[in-house]
């Protein structure tokens, strides 16, 4: 297992270097002078020349790429053009909000998606199955931003139950401080964005759980368990669900990537002060160092999550690590 883990960890390195190269290439794709794009139109000729030399923009492209990766490795993501702050500082200040939103949406998706899939598989071919899968089909077809708008319309505009904008107190610190009013405020703010972000993943997960369970229920060992006279509940939970979890674990990892991508939209709709909103604002203001840095950090997180998922998968299924 340790050898597999080391091998898998080493595989992340070229992917992250490649992601850095893509983030760097974004700058090359910019029409016009990258120095102007990075410093803004107001910069003087001398400033631009000094900046070009400082970043190596006056050198050949491979050397520029090498310098870019060198700076990234040393934590230098550049400075924001509009906010006049180091990009890394902006990223680190918004990352907790994005992770809070993404993780709570994944927990919601798992908590509702797997039981729904289980319900559909248990009642295969009945109206319960049809209804659940219809809901799931709607879930995977519904754009995140539209769902967000509908939820705001219902719960914030019509019923006035929940806030539609901003973030309350940070969830984790409220829990640690056992500050109940802050925790309630945090949950009230988190509820709508987390539900919006969770719905697609929830729908996907319920479809996958149903499919995986129906596959497993056809297996010989399930028939054997039934033949031994075990109760259906035991057969379903102890034998079938445990084996059906393998593909589900993989999908949950991929869904984290979906959640990070979806957070860009959800954070914009709900004014959630996370990295997604930071990226959208940076794009609107043509603040490319922030765009580059945020895109790269999100790719890094996504790659690390995928690695953890692969390791979990190998832990559950020995065929992976010995295969």
């Amino acid at each position: 297992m340790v050898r597999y883990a080391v091998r898998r960890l080493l595989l992340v390195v070229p992917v992250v270097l490649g992601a850095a190269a893509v983030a760097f290439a974004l700058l090359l794709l910019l029409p016009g002078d990258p120095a102007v794009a990075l410093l803004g139109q107001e910069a003087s000729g001398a400033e631009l020349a000094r900046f070009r030399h400082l970043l190596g923009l006056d050198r050949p492209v491979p050397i520029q790429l090498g310098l870019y990766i060198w700076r990234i490795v040393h934590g230098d993501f550049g400075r924001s053009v509009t906010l006049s702050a180091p990009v890394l500082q902006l990223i680190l200040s918004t990352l907790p909000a994005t992770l809070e939103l993404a993780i709570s949406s994944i927990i919601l998706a798992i908590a509702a998606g797997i039981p729904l899939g289980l319900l559909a598989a248990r009642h295969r071919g009945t109206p319960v199955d049809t209804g659940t899968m219809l809901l799931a089909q709607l879930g995977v077809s519904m754009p995140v931003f539209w769902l967000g708008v509908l939820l705001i319309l219902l719960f914030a505009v019509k019923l006035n139950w929940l806030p539609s904008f901003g973030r309350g107190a940070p969830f984790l610190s409220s829990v640690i401080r056992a500050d109940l009013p802050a925790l309630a405020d945090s949950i009230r703010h988190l509820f709508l964005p987390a539900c919006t972000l969770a719905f697609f993943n929830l729908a996907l997960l319920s479809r996958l759980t149903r499919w995986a369970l129906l596959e497993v229920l056809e297996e010989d060992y399930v028939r054997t368990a039934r033949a031994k006279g075990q109760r259906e509940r035991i057969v379903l939970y102890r034998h079938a669900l445990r084996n059906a979890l393998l593909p589900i674990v993989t999908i949950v990892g991929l869904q984290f990537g979906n959640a990070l991508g979806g957070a860009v939209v959800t954070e914009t709709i709900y004014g959630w002060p996370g990295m997604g909103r930071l990226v959208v604002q940076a794009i609107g203001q043509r603040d490319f160092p922030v765009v580059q840095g945020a895109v790269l950090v999100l790719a890094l997180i996504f790659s690390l999550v995928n690695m953890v998922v692969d390791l979990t998968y190998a832990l559950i299924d020995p065929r992976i690590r010995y295969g």
Partner: protein
Amino acid sequence: MRSSTRESATGKRPAARRSAPYGTGRRRHLTPSARVGAAVLIVIALAAGAPSIFTRASPDQVDILTRLAPPSHAHPLGTDNIGRDLLARLVHGARISLTVASISVGGAVCIGVTLGLLAGYLGGWIESVVMRIVDVFLAFPAILLALALVAVLGAGVTSVVTALTLVFWTQYARVVRATALAEKQKVYVEAARAIGADNGRIVIRHILPNILSPVIILATLGMGTAVVAESTLSFLGMGVQPPAPSWGWTLAFGTRYLRDAPHIATFSGLAIMLTVLGFNLLGDGVRDMLDPRFRPQ
């Protein structure tokens, strides 16, 4: 002729004549839900191709006196903030969504199938390079990469199509490579090589037709994803620019009038969802039809 010989030899009708073996010939028709999806898509394609069937109103006709009007006989879906007919804008917007989705998925299929075939069939360093590039692209959340690309290329239809193509090609490359790897081991490829076919002929005439099923399934489902992606970019102000009646932009604008005119955001979102639902239902049906693993037994 061959089957009648076999029939006479065994004294039985061959099973293949009555029902094909599992996974080869059963269920060559669409499921009812896939037909619903196809019907929805036909209506939307008609709206894109011949909008006058649905409305005579112009999507750009401004009537400030009827701004933010709710649905009525004159304006079946109401009007927007400057009195333009919402039905006309949504009907004309179908063309934008379907065009962007078709071209970007088409482009992604071309790049993905070509590189996937090269990687799967030739192997070696070509496979390593292609698959590492795929890994790098897959490290980015898709919509984030598309956003970043549009940010540098500039908003507009061409940029959106380019960005979506660059984001979506990887999934086709991955699937095609895996399928080509399996196909090149098969006897028919060996037979083609034995009769002197070169690599190009083997790939194009023999392997390509045999890997099309998963590509068709992915492309059908990918159309829905592309419609959502295009709308998302427009919603965030990075996609097709106004005054073009893009669904995502109309929805984004509708969010400013949620209290006074919720119909703008509601109907434009419904148009996007129905289109995506249509592609998803059709895609699932095509998958059930073409992929034996998904056929009911």
